[in-house]
């Protein structure tokens, strides 16, 4: 709003002072391209250059072992796709992203419905559920790692409740640990989803809900036929950010399992971190390019499908 006014006011001034100046020419002379340079420099240095580096280095042999960098064409890509590790990491990343998207949205929506009314307790509860969102992801990871250890607090509680010794290794199962880690990730971010769903629910007009009530619609019918379709934009945003954000996931998994057990939670970013640490900078860059392409390929159809749902609004 303020930018619009700032742009508009000199034009009005100029128009008042010189009756000849048409709006087109005055706009051009008032805002020479030169003015763009400071912003452009920031954009180029901090955004374009790193992005371009990310593309360029993927085609080189940049490593910590020598000083010169040479172009090697598509060799890094060929090597990567030949070894099964990359494909495994891609698969793990995709499974993880889908799990997080599902859990985070289910939890977020349930919380939003539960805490919808503006009571004092609900307001307090909303804050409590939002706190994990602002916590450090690594801290969350390490806390859960301690809780979920075989001799950790969770097993301690379960042992007391059941009366037998429970020593399940929650983070040591090659099949189920990825689900546990996805649950931790969703736990951290469900507060954000809750907030966005709450905002969506608040925009629904009372008239519509009252009409439904007068027609005798139950809570479930109202939710299924009216409220859920009406929060479609919130769903689009939540699913897209959860899915695409968790594909770039690293911190929580690194803190809880470091990609283990047996590589079953090795997300692409953990693989990239490991490769970079070995001094294979070019190969690590190639992987991040592959991740970028994968996120892009997935983002467009997902967002398109979700946006289609909004067309009824």
């Amino acid at each position, binding site marked *: 709003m303020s930018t619009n006014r700032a742009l508009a006011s000199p034009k009005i001034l100029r128009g008042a002072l010189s009756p000849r100046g048409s709006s087109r020419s005055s*706009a*051009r002379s008032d805002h020479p*391209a030169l003015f*763009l340079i400071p912003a*452009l420099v920031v*954009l*180029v*240095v901090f955004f*374009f*250059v790193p992005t*371009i*580096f990310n593309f*360029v280095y993927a085609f*080189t*042999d*940049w*490593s*910590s*072992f*020598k*000083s*010169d*960098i040479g*172009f090697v064409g598509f060799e890094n890509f060929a*090597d990567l796709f030949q*070894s099964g*590790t990359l494909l495994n990491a891609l698969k793990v990343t995709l499974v993880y992203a889908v799990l997080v998207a599902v859990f985070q949205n289910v939890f977020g929506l349930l919380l939003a419905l539960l805490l919808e009314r503006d009571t004092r307790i609900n307001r307090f509860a909303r804050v409590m559920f939002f706190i994990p969102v602002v916590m450090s992801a690594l801290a969350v990871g390490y806390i859960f790692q301690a809780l979920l250890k*075989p001799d950790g607090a969770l097993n301690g509680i379960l042992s007391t409740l059941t009366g037998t010794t429970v020593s399940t*290794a929650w983070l*040591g199962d*090659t099949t189920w640990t990825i689900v546990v880690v996805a649950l931790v990730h969703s736990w951290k971010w469900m507060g954000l989803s809750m907030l966005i769903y709450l905002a969506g629910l608040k925009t629904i007009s009372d008239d519509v809900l009252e009409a439904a009530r007068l027609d005798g619609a139950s809570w479930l019918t109202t939710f299924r036929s009216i409220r859920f379709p009406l929060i479609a934009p919130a769903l689009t945003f939540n699913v897209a950010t959860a899915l695409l954000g968790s594909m770039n996931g690293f911190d929580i998994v690194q803190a809880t399992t*470091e990609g*283990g*057990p*047996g*590589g*079953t939670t090795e997300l692409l970013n953990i693989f990239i*971190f*490991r490769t*970079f*640490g*070995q*001094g*294979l*900078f*070019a*190969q690590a860059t190639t992987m991040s390019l592959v991740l970028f392409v994968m996120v892009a390929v997935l983002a467009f159809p997902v967002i398109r499908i979700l946006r289609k749902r909004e067309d009824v609004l």
Partner: protein
Amino acid sequence: MKKNLLSAAVIAATSALLLAGCSDPGAGGTSADPASWPDQDTDLSGTSLTIWAAQNSNTVPDSVIAGFEDLTGAEVTVETIPDPYEQGIQTKVATGDMPDLAFWQPTASQLTALNAGTNLQSLDDAPWLENVDPALRDITGLLDDTRYAALVSTPAVQGVYYNKDVFTANGVTELPTDWESFIELGRQLDSAGVTPFYEMGADRWGTQWWVQVQLADAAADGLWDRVNAGDEKFTDPTIQGAIDTYASLIDEGLFNDDIKTATFEDQGAALLAGDAAMVVQVNSFFGQLQSLSDTETLNDTIGFFPIAPSGNIGSFIPDQSNALVAFATGDAEKEAASRQLLSYWLGDGYADFVETQDTISLQPSVPTPDTVPTALVSVSESIGTSVGSMQALAIANPDLYIFLADMIQGTKTPAEVAQATQDQFAQLAKAQGADGF
């Protein structure tokens, strides 16, 4: 407006491309020929030096720094680089950031990883070398016949830490003298209802020692030279055989039942409590034991012997806290000051360093304090006859431990472990430009 946008986009694209022109930001100064060594007490007022250290080595130089600052007037700062230390330093150096000195694993693979020829100062003809125990002088720190690292404490040795009480309770009086008797002892303890060996599958990094100690004889016979040249692979019988043996011992049930979830901390606690009889580990394991108990108890309960197929031969593996490298920063004055600090550290300051660190001396003229635990003395006694580990002798250090941990978890077969290690080794060797890859 459209034209403006277009020209802006053109400017953006060209300037970005210009900036992105390929150059290695980590290409440092070039290391000169073996340089002169200033006297230890040369005045350095106004000179400041930075040492990079890891979380577990950042207090190691305290006494040396205090002494050096008093003697020369220099100002020395220790900067702690968070773990994972090696990765952090490699990334910093790659992007053009360098200290004057840093703690660094003095092995060929890690010196290569720092691009020693370009980034590090040569330490040939250092004044302290004549004082170092001849058996230890040249075991590590060298790359392509140039010395790049100064060893300040004894390197770690892979070997067997055992609980003396468990041995006594089960009538074991003679320590194993070769691999066969070592495994036989394990089986004997197992049938007596004792857990013979303890492994930390969850923390992963300790898994590689079991494979490496089996390769000690082959290493003495030039195994790693052949691997470095691409003439022998991890998948060939020697290394594959060691992996297979490790897998079969696990299958046989000679290890702890919770091998998949056990951690480094669990391992130390288990050996100390006598829940397990033996652990194949390196010196940092003893550090863990020291954090759990006092020297007297440890002297009474914990012993050490090296092991290899043919006898009691250790495999040494220097780590980051054992040595320092001096960077070729391009500032001749500071480079000389770095060399001077190392001369002092291993010269007039060494006795004090050994005393305050309570560590084993590398120089016969400087006595080892008698407060050093006996197990560590056994470790250092084995160094003279030990051979280099994979980390010490191979040109690259693949993630063998991760793949072995995968094997313990059941997601890789022994053959897949060897293949994955070989693939990664070849990738690293190729990136280094090694012949044969």
